[in-house]
């Protein structure tokens, strides 16, 4: 096992006709995946997370910057010399081979003896519960089984320094996903694997990762633990991407009344500490447009709260999702989602009160997206 360091890595593709248009898929990515760490690259499709992974794997050339595995710079190494294991979104099982042969394939490349291969496959197949299907061919298996075989082929490599996974469970149904999330995390811990895992599903990232790298439009937005991302989003993108339902954003302007600063949204005012206002005044924001963000789960509906704000709003819709409900209210054309436990008694069209604690509000510069924090 080894750590992986990605340092100022760029990936650009030349445009179709001539060199006029340069497409930048990854822009100046820098992060470190520590030894035995589970790192997730998270972002919407086309954000550059898969390009980043493929550059680490050596399937794609690094346009600029360096990638280190352990102490070794791997830019010019072939994939086979980087000592990696990888599991693919499409599983990429070799169709003419049996499952056993598929899993043995990387070991054969290393000239293992047949006895040793058999023993190792026994170990791995028991772990992933695929002992019974070793003699089948991939086409006979269900998606979940193919998935586990693909993982087995990645995990069978004892000498792999890093295990890469590209959306390995994105095509499975919800139940299997939940089970494999737990299995994967358990295997990673037990075997002390260094894993770099690509996904667009925030739930996968938040539930498994020790560290998450959030990417958008080729740029890294934030690197942090799942708790960091949820509680201290660095910008509007991360705030909106992490969390389900997504964070509510209220457009505001910064105002001053005598000595007090406040953010004005519709007819509501939210106090702003003077030291925060100080920071805000230094921001690049000529139009004085700010965004106040509050998570749906941090709001309550139907009553006020001490040391917080209460807004009058009309109930727009109520969704019952079993153990929780999502109430959507409307304030001057702005829709706000509130997640409440259990069944909500709100009725559509009613006038109600929406409240949240002062400390639950995040302030963002609406122009740059940057969070304003002490």
């Amino acid at each position, binding site marked *: 096992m080894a750590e992986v360091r990605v340092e100022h890595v760029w990936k650009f593709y030349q445009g179709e006709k001539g060199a006029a248009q340069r497409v930048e898929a990854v822009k100046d990515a820098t992060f470190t995946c520590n030894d035995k760490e589970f790192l997730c690259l998270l972002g919407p499709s086309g954000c550059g997370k898969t390009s980043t992974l493929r550059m680490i794997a050596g*399937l794609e050339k690094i346009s600029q910057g360096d990638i280190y595995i352990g102490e070794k710079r791997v830019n010019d190494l072939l*994939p086979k010399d980087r000592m990696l*294991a990888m599991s*693919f979104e499409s599983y990429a099982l070799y169709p003419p081979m049996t499952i056993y042969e598929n899993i043995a394939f990387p070991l054969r*490349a290393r000239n293992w003896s047949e006895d040793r291969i058999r023993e190792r496959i026994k170990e791995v197949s028991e772990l992933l519960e695929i002992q019974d299907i070793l003699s089948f061919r991939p086409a006979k298996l269900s998606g979940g089984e193919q998935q586990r075989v693909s993982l087995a*082929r990645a995990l069978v490599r004892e000498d792999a320094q890093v295990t890469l996974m590209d959306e390995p469970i994105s095509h499975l149904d919800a139940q299997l996903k939940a089970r494999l999330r737990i299995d994967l995390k358990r295997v990673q811990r037990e075997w002390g694997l260094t894993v770099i895992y690509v996904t667009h599903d925030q739930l996968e990232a938040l539930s498994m990762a020790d560290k998450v790298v959030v990417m958008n439009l080729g740029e890294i937005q934030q690197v942090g633990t799942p708790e960091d991302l949820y509680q201290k989003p660095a910008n509007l993108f991360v705030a909106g991407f992490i969390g389900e339902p997504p964070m509510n954003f209220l457009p505001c302007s910064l105002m001053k009344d005598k000595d007090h600063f406040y953010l004005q949204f519709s007819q509501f005012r939210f106090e702003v500490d003077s030291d925060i206002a100080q920071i805000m005044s230094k921001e690049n924001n000529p139009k004085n447009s700010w965004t106040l963000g509050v998570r749906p789960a941090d709001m309550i509906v139907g009553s006020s709260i001490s040391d917080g704000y209460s807004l009058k709003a009309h109930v727009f819709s109520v969704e019952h999702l079993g153990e929780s409900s999502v109430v959507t209210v409307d304030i001057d054309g702005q829709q706000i989602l509130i997640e409440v436990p259990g069944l909500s008694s709100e009725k559509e069209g009613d006038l109600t009160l929406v409240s949240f604690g002062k400390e639950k509000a995040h302030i963002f510069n609406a122009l740059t997206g940057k969070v304003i924090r002490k």
Partner: protein
Amino acid sequence: MNGERLTLGKVLFAVGLVLIMLWTIFPLYWVFNMSIQTPIDVISYPPKFVFDPTLENYSVVLLGKSWLGKYETVQTDFPRYFLNSLIVCSGAVILSMLVGVPAAYSLARYNFRGKENFAFTLLSFRFAPGLIVIIPLFIIFRRIGFYGTYYGMIFAYQLLTLPFSVWLMRGFFEDIPAELEHAARIDGYSWWGVFRKIDLPLIAPGIAATAILSFIFAWNEFLFGYILSSDATRPVTPSLMGFISYEQVLWGQMAAAAIITLLPSVILAIFIQRYLVRGLTFGAVKG
């Protein structure tokens, strides 16, 4: 009611099939008939469907002797021509595969300048009728000493089989997901190892189908064989012309030779039929 209609439909379908079969098979039947008739029966009118069959035509064609019995013949060295065809067609197919497999692979997998132009130019060889190129080719072959040689013939036949092979196999390679190769490369194999262990087993039916079709194309080729070969390297198709003599056309022997000429294509097609269909629908079934 429904069942009856279905039966009627089935009957009509069967009748249609039989008609198409008759239409297709009849010329073959007629040639076969001619090949087992004596010269008198062949030219009799109205044509005879019942006659005393004879194998004389075959023995004359295969043994290559002048017939000394009831009727005349020209002397043809048919087994030699048959062998020539085998050499030239196999040579052309082997050459097409040796050049075509790497060409198809690189067209399917890599991006390089002028890739599509190259592929199209290759295909465009098939657009032009052979008649357009045959005279210049003949003159060039005379000059550089290719005329009437096996390697010259193989080179000319390869012009027919290579473009076809490259285009067919390019599709097969494109149907192999690139991720399979990526996975194998990460698993620790070199480019050659991946090609040999992953690509080749997957594409083997496709290569077999392509090779067989190419062989049949080459085998049935007439023009290049007719113009570019000398008597020593003449393939079977133009050799059938040898049965047209000054005084008469030796229909019976020509038919016998034609039937023998047909055999390799038919046998190949029958034995490899399932393979062939699988090879040609390799990509189609996946979509």
